[in-house]
């Protein structure tokens, strides 16, 4: 009669184990879809490159890993406080070679970000070094950090 409960318990235990494994999976996953341990999915190709935004006092700095992309393949625009970074990296087999393995896929990307403070669009600079794109956006004078002195009365 009570064997039924035993089976029920067993089922619950199985579910608990499943949940534990899923939790572990998520805790190992650090939110970056660019992780080679995680097979690339459609999401990975739609979110490339991953971008970090820094506040460096007088500037806002955007950094993105764009290995194999050269400066002529990149277009960067800013309008109305929206920064957009677009470009393309072709996956070509060099002339005369045959491919054994191609993990570096072809990417065509366009990402837009709203810039969290007013920036001086004229003085934005973008550099690319060792496969890392750095966009430096000087803040507009009214958005610059300012020290306010307290006056004793």
């Amino acid at each position, binding site marked *: 009669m009570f064997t039924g409960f035993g089976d029920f318990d067993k089922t619950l235990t199985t579910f608990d184990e499943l949940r534990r494994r899923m939790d572990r999976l998520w805790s190992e996953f*650090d*939110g*970056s879809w*660019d*992780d*080679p*341990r995680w097979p690339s999915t459609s999401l990975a190709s739609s*979110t490339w490159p*991953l*971008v*970090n*935004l*820094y*506040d*460096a*006092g007088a*500037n*806002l*700095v955007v*950094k993105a*890993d*764009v*290995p*194999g*992309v*050269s400066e002529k393949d990149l277009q960067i625009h800013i309008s109305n406080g929206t920064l957009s970074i677009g470009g393309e990296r072709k*996956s070509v*087999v*060099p002339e*005369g*070679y*045959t*491919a*054994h*393995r*191609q*993990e*570096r896929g072809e990417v065509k990307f366009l990402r837009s970000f709203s810039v*969290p403070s007013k920036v001086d669009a004229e003085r934005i600079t973008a550099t*690319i070094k*060792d*496969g*890392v794109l*750095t966009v430096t956006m000087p803040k507009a004078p009214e958005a610059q950090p300012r020290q306010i002195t307290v006056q004793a009365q």
Partner: protein
Amino acid sequence: MNTSQNLAQRPRHTTDPIQQHATVAARVDVFENKDEVLLLAEMPGATADGVNVHLDQGKLTISGRRPPLDAPGVLLAGEFQPRDYHRTFAIPQGIDGAKIAAKFVDGVLQIHLPKSETLKPRRIEVKAG
């Protein structure tokens, strides 16, 4: 007594900041033609002097270190964490280890592994007897 004085006198925040990067496998393309095997490995953010190519007993190990603390300011929004790179390959027999050449361009490590003479395709003339 002495120790406690030292402790008290030690200026604060003198330790080196520690930042540990996780290490991931670099993504690679492998190509081959009749003269060589060409390996391209993505290592964005690594610097040329932080990139190492090492051949030992038929195993080619590549690694790339990103300079620590290259954040230009306070992180407002982050989608990725900078990572170091590492990967090992078994090299087929017949690669001339002495002639391996490597270059680091646009965050991509390019390694040319020339085949030794014995491995190159060769046409053998058939003579009429």
